[in-house]
């Protein structure tokens, strides 16, 4: 096949690119609709009808960090390297078996440098992390005053007006998903953008992800994108042996990821 033939054969594909954009936009709209009965009508919202979760397709993540930026902006997360509701890890598994992991969401130079030669790399990938919104959350179990709790629609939240700031929940979280908010001096974490979800919107990180590596949805809805995600992929969760039953599901999760 020469260059001319190749380009001709690609014509069809190129024509389809805009269509792909339209389709993905439609997809976002569909998933937005499933998050509540009627977008904007909070009064009609019945939390018992929903159970939220997130799917993450590792192979789609390009490590662009837009999710992290969107999250920090949306939720007023401190703009430093020590407080994250979501972050992205880069795994580099070398041929000699050595595993190098960095948090690429930080401003630290380590995120950019220290990449081994291509020839030495066996495989490499990005893993977005966030609160796993566990079904059996250890943080909720240990909170001495019940300031952190599970909602009926499956989200673990912190009541900043009740939290006494003892940090026990931070110790109990196996995923490092919690931090002490330096402004409020209370525990803080990912809420699945509960304020948005309740209004029929997607979490900020899902909304901005350019590759749709993140899929948000309702496990109680058959038409949910998340249910479809779980049907189409072999999925896995982080640290299953701890019996926390995470509701963040990973597709193509590597055994090295903890």
């Amino acid at each position, binding site marked *: 096949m020469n260059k001319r033939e190749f380009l001709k054969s690609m014509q069809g594909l190129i024509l389809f690119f805009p269509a792909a954009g339209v389709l993905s936009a439609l997809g976002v709209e569909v998933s937005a609709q499933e998050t509540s009965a009627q977008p904007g009508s909070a009064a009609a919202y019945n939390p018992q009808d929903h159970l939220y979760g997130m799917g993450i397709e590792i192979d789609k993540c390009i490590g662009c960090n837009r999710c992290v930026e969107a999250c920090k902006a949306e939720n007023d997360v*401190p703009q*430093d*390297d*020590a*407080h*994250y509701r979501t*972050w992205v*890890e880069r795994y580099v598994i070398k041929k000699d078996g050595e*595993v*190098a*992991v*960095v*948090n690429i*969401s*930080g401003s*630290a130079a380590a995120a950019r440098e220290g990449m081994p030669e291509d020839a030495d790399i066996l495989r490499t990938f990005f893993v977005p*992390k966030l609160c796993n919104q566990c079904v059996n959350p*250890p943080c*909720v*179990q*240990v*909170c*001495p*005053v*019940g*300031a952190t709790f599970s909602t009926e629609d499956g989200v673990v939240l912190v009541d900043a007006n*009740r*939290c*006494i*700031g*003892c*940090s*026990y929940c*931070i*110790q*109990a*979280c*196996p*995923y*490092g*998903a*919690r*931090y*002490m908010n*330096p*402004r*409020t*001096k*209370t525990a803080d974490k990912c809420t699945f953008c509960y304020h948005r979800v309740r209004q029929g919107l997607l979490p900020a990180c899902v909304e901005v992800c350019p590759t749709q590596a993140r899929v948000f949805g309702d496990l109680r809805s058959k038409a949910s994108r998340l249910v479809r995600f779980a049907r189409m992929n072999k999925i896995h969760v982080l640290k299953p042996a*701890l019996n926390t039953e995470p509701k963040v599901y990973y597709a193509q999760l590597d055994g090295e990821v*903890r």
Partner: protein
Amino acid sequence: MNLEATARLSEMMTQVTGFIYPNEIEIHWSILIVVYPYITGLVAGAFILASLENVFNVEEVRPTYRLALLTALSFMVVAPLPLLMHLGHPERFYEILLAPNLTSAMAMFGFVYGWYLMGVLLLEVWFEFRQDLIILARRAPVPMRWVYRAASLFSNDVSQAARAFDDKAIRVITIVGIPSAFLLHGYVGFIFGSVKANPWWSSVLIPIVFLMSAIVSGIALVIFLYMILAALRKEPVDMRCLDTMTSYLFYAVIVDFTLEALDFTHRLYESEESVRILGTLIRQKLFMSLIVLQVLIGMLVPLAILIVAKWRKLGDDGRRLLYFTAVILIQMGIFSTRWNIVIGGQLFSKSFRGLMAYKMEITGIEGFLTALGLLVLPFVVLAVLIKVLPTRPLGEEVHTPA
């Protein structure tokens, strides 16, 4: 966030080795949370020593009974302070007492502490000192007379029958008190031992290790205080009492050491996912505080000292010197134990891929000086209590060694 905190965090970041989850850079349970189990351990240990005389009728330790009781009380009143001061919102502390989350080990604090202070310690102290308070109230001049009157709760009965009732009550309280003391410190251990996310803490042995080390530190503290007090008052030390107490101390250290060795061996032998990072943790971060201070200087050396003191038939002076050295070393060792558990458990990432650093503040509410103040405070309380309350029942002769 203030600039100082930001600077601290970025300094900490330079000391991270390997990979940690980004939120893990901050060490949340500081030196104050090291002080808390240390102080509670002293309470439980001192009380258990005091109970020996009452329940098990060990007459030899009688001279230290009241001292042990007052020591337990002084440390008990200070015990909640480090907890309170480390909270992000100390003004909401009452929430733990009023609206405890019943699945939380930490929420049991209110019940356990309240029960132990009100139901056990204060009651026993009151029954033990009631007689003397009445006598003192009759002797003392005006301002102190009122204090003694109030402290005796305006009781006035010094009859034989009342005395017999006091003794009976004390016996009952002690019998209830021993399991309560176990509960108090076992519960503190459970706070750590039940965190399944943290392999350094998560162990069913932790509450028991806490308990045994509490008994060790409590006995060592009372021996220390007894010797200091005798020196200050220029009174002779009852060597029979001292020999008995150090024997108990010796056996308690052996049991404690055995349990910790078992825990260590068990982890090493099972060799779970976390074993590598924990090995690195011990080698790189805890070598000094765990191997040198806790095990070598805080346990093996004092054991050797106690063996020498017991078996070499040394004179009273020689034994006293060795005992005194041993209890100080043991005390330091137990403090290191608390440090290694609390701080050590926060120095490795839950990703098992890296280590963090802890840099103690000097000033500041969670700093070294606060911790030091909190460790000195119980001694101040104790000094006041000893000043006000007689450590020997009034009318009893000074026991001189044969």
